[in-house]
């Protein structure tokens, strides 16, 4: 015969199940609302993964995915036997890492500095001005950038020649092209990128600042010892997500700014594939390129997340 305690122990999970079920029933509308995006996610993001198969096949639309013949990794062999693809891969990594090192911290610093501005009006104007370039496409921005750096009409060359120097064709110079890419990318996304950090800063408990003040901390100390540590979890999440996109070095930006003289340093995977017309009707090859980029991206996310979890309590999951 079971004791009262034993019965209680046995019936505990059942009660828990009942509680969960009751709770779910209570929130059925919320679950229903969640189901819609989940179904969409499944239909548009998971079912199509079946199509990844064509990266390993000679895809023929007439035969369909399954009946198209396997091609013994031919697309990947072709990718890695093309020295221009290898060069594009190297350029992609270099540009992306430079952007990660230089551009990624910029919105964080900008958000922290913006937070320190006392005049609300000046703060709002600064924010609005910094958001503006984000809403313009690279087609428009590239025309502006090319004009600014023009050897004949550009303001920079005007200053150089005014002081007796020789005009420099910055946009066709391998040495100056990458710094221009980095700077213009930073200019375009600085304000927009700062929004998420500003939002995080507003959620910091004011008592932390008060406590720091009591301890005698000035504004700089508060920035370093309160604001920065408080937004660090968000910084880490953003960093890991950015790492996942390391093989996307800025297709629109580069396509609109580059020219054959700077291919050597600026031709990235996306521009090379686009220029080669390899995507047109070559679904299998394009899928192989996309798969390669995604695999690298997910590997970087997993690795970075694992390292960060080992060193701290933050991370994506």
């Amino acid at each position, binding site marked *: 015969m079971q004791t009262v305690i034993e019965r209680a122990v046995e019936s505990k999970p059942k009660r828990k199940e009942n509680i969960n079920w009751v709770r779910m029933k209570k929130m059925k509308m919320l679950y229903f609302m969640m189901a819609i995006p989940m179904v969409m996610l499944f239909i548009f993001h998971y079912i*199509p993964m079946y199509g990844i198969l*064509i990266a390993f096949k000679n895809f023929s639309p007439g035969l369909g995915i399954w009946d198209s013949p396997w091609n013994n990794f031919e697309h990947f062999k072709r990718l890695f036997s093309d020295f221009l693809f290898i060069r594009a891969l190297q350029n992609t990594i270099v540009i992306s890492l430079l952007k990660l090192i230089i551009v990624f911290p910029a919105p964080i610093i900008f958000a922290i500095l913006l937070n320190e501005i006392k005049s609300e009006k000046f703060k709002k104007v600064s924010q609005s001005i910094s958001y503006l370039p984000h809403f313009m496409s690279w087609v428009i921005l590239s025309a502006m950038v090319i004009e600014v750096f023009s050897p004949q009409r550009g303001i920079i060359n005007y200053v150089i020649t005014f002081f007796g120097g020789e005009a420099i064709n910055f946009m066709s110079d391998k040495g100056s092209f990458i710094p221009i890419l980095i700077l213009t990318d930073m200019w375009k996304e600085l304000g927009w990128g700062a929004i998420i950090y500003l939002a995080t800063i507003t959620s910091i408990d004011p008592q932390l600042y008060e406590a720091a003040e009591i301890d005698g901390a000035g504004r700089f100390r508060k920035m370093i010892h309160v604001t920065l540590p408080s937004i660090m979890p968000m910084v880490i999440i953003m960093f890991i997500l950015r790492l996942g996109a390391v093989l996307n070095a800025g297709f629109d930006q580069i396509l609109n700014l580059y*020219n054959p003289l700077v291919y050597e340093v600026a031709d990235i995977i996306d521009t090379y594939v686009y220029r*080669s017309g390899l995507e*047109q*009707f070559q679904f299998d090859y394009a899928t192989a390129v*996309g798969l390669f980029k995604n695999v690298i991206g997910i590997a970087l996310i997993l690795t970075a997340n694992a390292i960060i979890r080992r060193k701290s309590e933050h991370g994506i999951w």
Partner: protein
Amino acid sequence: MKKYAKVLSATALSSALLLTTACSNNEATSGEKIDIASLPDSGDYSDKLELSLSGSITKGKAEDGNYVQKRLEEQFNIKIKNTKVDTWNKDQVNLMVASGELPDTFAFTAGGKTPQELFDAGLTRTIPKEMLEKYAPRYMKMLGENPPGPEMNLLKGSDNEYLQLIGLYSHVDGLTWTPTFRLDWLEKLGFEPPGEIKQVGPSGGREKIYYTDKAYTLEEVEEILKAFTFNDPDGNGKNDTYGISPYNDQMHWAASLMGSFGLAPDYNFIEDDKLVVTEISKKYKEFLKLLAKWYDMGLIDPEFTTLDLNKSWEKYKQGKIGYYIAQSSYLAMDDWTKGRAPQNLVENPNSTAKILATAPEIGKDGQQGVGSFIPVGNLADAFYVSKNVTDEELARILQIFDYINFDNEARWTLYGEVGVHSDWEGEPEKSALKVRPEYAAEEGNSGFWGYNFRTYDKERVQWFTSEYTMNLRKEYFARDDVKENMLIRPYKWDVLNKTKMAEMKLRYQGQLKTVVDEFRMKAIVGEIDIDKEWDKYIENWLNNGGQDILAEMDKSDKVSDLMKQ
């Protein structure tokens, strides 16, 4: 992200395709023997058929029930399903192909697969010669008159199954490009035109554009460019003009300059008893050296490295460039050329600029010319029939195709009735037709051009060409002696699909174009020493697919033989 989106959408549609192809009962008859006697007679339209049609101009804007649609439906007893896809948009075409939702007829403007590959991929069906003879006699007559027409586009291993239909390109017959100079600058600087000059037209800016069938030599051109650059031709007291401003995305700007070396981009010829492609030839090396010299002298606008074609037109419009390449219709200021250099300089009625078009520059050995628009003959383009089209449907499609594209009574499919839908721009039958503003010039409520293929005999060319352009073509661009002496054609070309040249070109074009573009630009701006880097460049070109392409080219027929057939 854009790339990811494209790849994902392609894969998404591909997976959808699996289902559609699995479910569909494909009754195509590609490559199989046709019992022609069992098919209806020509002109027998007793069975009503539903056809989804698209043509060369289709941008998905044809309204249902449009004028041309109604008349075609009545005439051929069909129900037309209009194509709602922009066949000029690469992404839309890609998705359409991936989904397998192809119209019964199509002529995509952008092609990334050879006709054989489209057939092998299960997208198109073949068109039997017997059916063409029975249902498209005018088309077959046109093929017979344009060698090697009947032998082109045959399915591999067959002599009576065509992979596609082809168009007659009379509108590009003759020289496509010719150089122009700022005539007001020439006059100011004391340069005489090379021959007698004539005005292109009496008004509308054409009175400021002149032409001559004589040419300057390359040495003379160099002197002119020097004066354009350093002798202040615009008289503003500043050293702000340039002889020539190329662009970085195409090679048209050098069409006649290359011609003075006997070259045309991508074509091949015999050099030192070997077949070579222009871009790896010694003559090309000399051409690059000349441009590098001009760049070093300051005759070439250094900003050209950042200019694409459109930006280059804008740059020319600023009035600081003396030399530019032009087509006959640019000189005649046809409507569609608005904004394009060099005519954009004289569009403004207040402009005092004048332009002179000359024959292509004469090179060292007296060489002069421009690459032909089409390597062999005047046949080009592709009109496909979807794999899902049955023989009975094909019979009807061919009759419609033959009528609207090769019977000039069917002008109404392009311009409606003259006097009702359109009017002659100038003298009837000798000027272009203009659609009245209440009707859509293409597709829309009229349906004009919505179902036609890009194929034009001389009469059709007149319908969309101004009398000024026609006059220029007659007087110079398409004159028989000009065509004979100045059109540069390749030595060998595979128009009969005997080799793998087309597949090889598609596969390696990205690599080879990058290698060639980089070397050319670096050579011109003096970033590399052409002599020192040449061998490395050739090796690079050969190792990146060039060798395979050359080998396939070598197996091809001689163009001179093909043209004789």
